[in-house]
């Protein structure tokens, strides 16, 4: 399983701050996003939200490895 961290508006939309998503070899960021958007509340996320792998922003085609630290990043609003 992949543990996915959610924050702010995305955590509210999905009803929690973490998700467990089944992991398969070859899963890419875009595949993960599709899985999340298929969950109840998932349509609140845009089709291509920012995703961070191991605390760095990741491209849609980046491969996810088992054990990676994964987070979906809502539009940031610091400052």
């Amino acid at each position, binding site marked *: 399983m992949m543990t996915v*961290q959610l924050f702010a508006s995305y955590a*509210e939309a999905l009803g929690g701050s973490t998700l467990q998503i089944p992991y398969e070899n070859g899963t890419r960021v875009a595949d993960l996003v599709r899985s999340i958007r298929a969950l109840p509340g998932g349509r609140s996320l845009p089709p291509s939200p920012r995703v*961070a792998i191991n605390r760095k922003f990741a491209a849609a085609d980046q491969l996810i490895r088992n054990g990676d630290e994964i*987070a979906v*990043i*809502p539009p*940031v*609003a*610091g*400052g």
Partner: protein
Amino acid sequence: MKRAAVVTRPIDPGALIAEVQSPEFGAISLFVGTVRDVNDGRSVTGLDYSGYVAMAESELAAILDEAAVNFGIGAIAIEHRIGALTLGDVSVAIASAHAHRRPAIECTRFVIEEIKSRVPIWKLEHYVDGAREWVDPTRAVGDAAV
């Protein structure tokens, strides 16, 4: 010296100035962001800042490294506060020191713009009418994104 931190206590901008001050620097540029009472035409009573702190601190560290390369900055200190803030509270402070004013000022501007675009921190605004909303600068209108 270079230092960046996400903090949960009040920020003292004077302490950041003292931290970067040195006889070798002829200029210190300070930016202080504070909680404003109106956003997008709605009266704000307070904010809750939250963050993905581990990534926020690594992004801030990367911004520090880029600032050092881009501006040859001598010393820089950044603090961003998270938690419940009220009107007028300091949410972020940046102090950049350099031998000369232009790189110091340009560095500070660079850092705040980078924070706003890539550091994973969010704010939940509370309004006078009791409503609350996550701020989304990507759909900002009016003066909200300036």
